[in-house]
């Protein structure tokens, strides 16, 4: 290496690490990993200029640096504060931080509709996780929650402005990933809203990535809308030969149907590589993809429920004992059950399913 980057020492929750100059506290904490990492709703390491909006990553700096050991008077946003040599940071160990974070979560949830039972993001929602960890049981807010006029963002992306926490991630994504910006924040304060200034369909080829960066359910995949709950689909790593993107994705399958395609996410919930709209919205056949295997899901995540790993299936001994005769099937579940009907392929429906999709008359009455 031609240039030696100067390393400085930083201590976070009594764990010391050497980091290069110019690292933020949040990045340093992520280098340590584990429980000392402050949660981040708006900061996204792959988007330039992101961070500093949501205040969930507040930490206490108990010693400014070796040269100036005074503590910082206020809690600082760790995603925007660079580390100094000899800095000491308290995250989990500080009751002030805990208290402030609880307050921030309460503020974030003030106008949030809490319609998790309907929301497609439930199960992989960062706000849900945050609320579960730091939230209060009930709300103290007595007024009407804000509502917005509905904006149509085209056939692929569904915008629920009421769920938005104004993290600006999607705005940065639209700015930095796509050629022309058609997406921004209008109005101020409580009335701020994400919109496409001229209510035009967003036709950039990478605009689908705003769905992945959204920490809440404000921007969701219209082609997956209400198809299934996230935790009932199984994530599979897959790839395909794509002209415009890496083609490395996670397929969310139900049986053999591909209900949803997302980019692969790392342990911080950030996408590894951006994927194009074609991969995300158009390729809903298993045959389009080369499947690598099941994606590793954190054991504590709801998504891992019902995914039985390393199961030893006993071998079927019946036919061996009965001279090759197959066991008689007493009841085919599809002859009675109308759920998971093999003749209904949800992945081929554009947009959400309606009642008619399931009430088709092809079913033979017995």
């Amino acid at each position: 290496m031609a240039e030696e980057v100067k390393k400085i020492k930083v201590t976070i929750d009594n764990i010391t690490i050497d980091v290069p100059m110019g690292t933020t506290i949040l990045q340093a904490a992520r280098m340590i990993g584990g429980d000392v990492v402050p949660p981040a709703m708006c900061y996204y390491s792959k988007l330039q200029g992101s961070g500093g909006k949501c205040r969930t990553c507040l930490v206490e700096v108990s010693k400014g640096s070796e040269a100036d050991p005074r503590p910082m008077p206020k809690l600082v946003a760790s995603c925007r504060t660079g580390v100094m040599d000899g800095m000491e940071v308290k995250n989990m160990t500080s009751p002030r931080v805990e208290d402030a974070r609880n307050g921030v979560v309460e503020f974030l949830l003030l106008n949030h509709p809490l319609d998790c039972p309907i929301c497609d993001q439930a199960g992989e929602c960062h706000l849900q996780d945050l609320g579960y960890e730091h939230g209060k049981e009930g709300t103290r807010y007595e007024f009407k929650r804000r509502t917005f006029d509905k904006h149509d963002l085209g056939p692929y992306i569904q915008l629920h402005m009421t769920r938005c926490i104004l993290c600006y991630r999607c705005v940065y994504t639209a700015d930095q990933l796509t050629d022309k910006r058609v997406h921004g924040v209008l109005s101020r304060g409580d009335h701020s809203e994400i919109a496409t200034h001229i209510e035009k369909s967003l036709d950039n080829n990478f605009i689908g990535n705003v769905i992945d960066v959204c920490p809440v359910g404000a921007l969701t995949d219209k082609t997956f809308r209400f198809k299934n709950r996230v935790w009932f689909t199984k994530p599979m790593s897959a790839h395909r030969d794509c002209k415009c993107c890496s083609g490395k994705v996670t397929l969310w399958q139900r049986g053999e149907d591909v209900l949803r395609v997302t980019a692969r996410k790392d342990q911080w919930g950030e996408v590894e590589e951006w994927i194009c709209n074609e991969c995300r919205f158009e390729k809903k056949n298993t045959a389009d993809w080369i499947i690598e295997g099941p994606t590793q899901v954190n054991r504590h995540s709801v998504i891992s429920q019902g995914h039985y790993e390393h199961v030893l299936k006993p071998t079927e001994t019946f036919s061996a004992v009965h001279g090759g005769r197959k066991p008689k099937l007493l009841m085919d579940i599809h002859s009675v059950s109308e759920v998971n009907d093999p003749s209904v392929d949800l992945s081929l429906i554009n947009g959400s399913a309606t009642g008619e999709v399931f009430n088709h008359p092809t079913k033979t009455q017995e």
Partner: protein
Amino acid sequence: MASLTTRSKVLEQTPLNLMERLYLPSIFKGMAITFSHIFKKKATISYPEEQRPFSPVFRGLHVLNRDEDGRENCTACGLCAVSCPAEAITMEAAERQPNEEHLYREEKYAAKYEINMLRCIFCGLCEEACPKDAIYLSETFAPSNFTRKGFIYSKDQLLIPDPNTEKEKYQVAKGLREVHKKNKK
């Protein structure tokens, strides 16, 4: 060999005396006890003419609830299915259309909802998990059936009757639930 416990007792068998060898006194004693039961309160009831009341915490057949306007509460959030230890509940969600607002309370609803009563263990975790008060366990048994098919309960068997058009049936289905709720308070 060392004994496994310090509390073991050595039983000493003494030979039976005359009274014991006769057996008859013991037999009459036992008969007297049996005879006395004729005059005691009967432990059984003549089901089905007579029926025992269910306990307030009895968990029976599931009911899918409606709100006071007769709209279905269920929004197909899948929490009952995910909490179900027997994996008995399955569902299929659909989006409410503009002309269906009087049928479903939320934007999303369960187009299909099935409970496999052969799998169900009536633990009541679905009722506990439901955020919309949409499913509860009532005070009835799942009736017996000759085929397995009869135990896959779909929405038309599970849904509570409409409180506006079929008031009496709705009250019957609600059962003593409201009364118990009041008593709790």
